[in-house]
């Protein structure tokens, strides 16, 4: 596998001190790399630097061997960035938008447009202003796959997509990687990381390699927000980040239900703890489960292990 993207000691700092620093990693052809980070972790700034929109303050990155800081034009021939805003010419049709952007990328109109549009269930003859947010996202994702670039960069690709479309996109992104692209996904959704070959975590501007999804979730609070026809799950480190998450969701619809937990039931309970509670008489099981969860919540535990269950047991015995 050849190296598509090689990032070394990259840094960008905003005047307020935010940004990222000393970021180094490599990504190869055929790989799907996922960079996971919470809101404000420096994820989008890193995306903007790698998409050549802004120049880094320190370090450098090579795009298929081309130093992007020195030869921006050549580097741009290898990259297709999908920004988090679904930017299209609203008064043109989906087909015209695809044709225009493919022209800008020097690809010309392809025969595969219809096939790709079919995969994403897109009506290309409608004006983009008539599209829903999810449709605009799908159009943008379809354009990225049609571009056939060596590096496909995605900033929160699944925002606004329903679950079936999300899996369609990730399947297609995987196919694009197998056909010779390097796919890099920037996300704050844990579900998206399931499709990655390599997991990286960006936190407070620093990038680290993550061994597993559990590594990514360490110390995070799960927020599930239900809108009109969407249910969105976000991960935050403190309740103070909740307004930002809601603000981001608002364009998709008014939140109707917000559920906050230290992970879903499967992640909150370790199998051993679940087994231990399962040994209790059936009539008491629900009550014990609730007591353990309340104890975990009050004590600030993010995961219920056998020890937590034993703590509750000891407390009950003392009483």
């Amino acid at each position: 596998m050849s190296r598509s993207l090689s990032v070394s000691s990259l840094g960008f700092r905003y005047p307020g001190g935010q940004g990222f620093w000393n970021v180094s990693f490599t990504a190869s052809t055929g790989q799907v790399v996922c960079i996971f980070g919470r809101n404000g972790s420096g994820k989008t700034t890193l995306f903007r630097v790698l998409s050549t929109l802004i120049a880094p303050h320190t370090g450098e990155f090579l795009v298929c061997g081309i130093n992007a800081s020195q030869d921006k034009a050549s580097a741009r021939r290898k990259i297709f960035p999908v920004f988090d805003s679904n930017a299209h010419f609203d008064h043109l049709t989906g087909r015209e938008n695809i044709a225009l952007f493919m022209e800008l990328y020097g690809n010309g109109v392809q025969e595969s447009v219809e096939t790709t549009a079919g995969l994403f269930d897109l009506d290309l003859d409608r004006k983009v202003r008539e599209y829903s947010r999810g449709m605009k996202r799908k159009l943008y994702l379809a354009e990225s796959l049609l571009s056939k670039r060596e590096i496909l960069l995605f900033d929160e690709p699944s925002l606004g997509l329903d679950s079936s479309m999300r899996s369609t996109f990730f399947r297609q992104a995987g196919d694009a990687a197998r056909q010779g692209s390097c796919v890099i996904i920037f996300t704050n959704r844990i579900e998206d990381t399931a499709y990655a070959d390599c997991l990286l975590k960006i936190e407070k501007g620093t990038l680290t390699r993550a061994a597993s999804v559990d590594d990514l979730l360490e110390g995070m609070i799960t927020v599930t927000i239900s809108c009109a026809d969407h249910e969105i799950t976000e991960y935050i480190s403190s309740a103070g980040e909740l307004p930002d998450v809601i603000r981001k969701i608002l364009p998709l619809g008014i939140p109707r239900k917000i559920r906050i937990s230290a992970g879903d039931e499967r992640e909150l309970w370790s199998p051993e703890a679940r087994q231990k509670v399962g040994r209790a008489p059936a009539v008491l099981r629900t009550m014990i489960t609730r007591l353990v969860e309340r104890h975990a919540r009050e004590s600030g535990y993010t995961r219920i292990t056998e020890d937590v269950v034993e703590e509750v047991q000891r407390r009950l015995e003392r009483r």
Partner: protein
Amino acid sequence: MIETIFRAVAAQSSGRFILKSLVSLIFVAIFTVIQKGGLALAMLVIFSGVTGPAIRIVTLRTSGILDRIITTPAHKPSMFLIFTGVWSAAVFAALVPALVILLFQAGPVIMVPVISGTVLAVSIGTLTGIAAKTLGDAHLYAILAAVPLIIGTLLPGPQSLALPYSSMSLTLFPAISLLTQTCFLGVWLMILAGLVSRM
């Protein structure tokens, strides 16, 4: 593709285009009565040439399209020239009914300063749009850019040789003046295209 590019960049609906044409026609017709049709046309070229593209660029920026365009491998000076060309055509087309009135008065030679004046105003508007971050900025910068052009047009002096708006206003078209205007415009566009290539 040319038609798609034109519609994408200019984003003019037919209703808006007709309204612009009508307003310019009435404006120039009124001023022609008091022998100031040329001046009225010059003012229209300056205002619509500077503000239109400036606002369009900011709209493209706020919607995220500008970021998308910047990160494409497309040659940036060419993109700038295409944008300026499309907007010049859009501004010029809306002024055609008004221009017809002056064609009878001044003759076809007026086309030279009108075309160069439109391209100059649009290129300044494009630069203004690139510098502005918000629509408020765009309006402010457009006014700040238009004021020197208006002053230069109204005041007599050596600048009137290079400014096509003075020729339009005075309906005087000496060959040296038209040549200077065209050369000045060419140099100006090359400088701007060079600046844009750094994006």
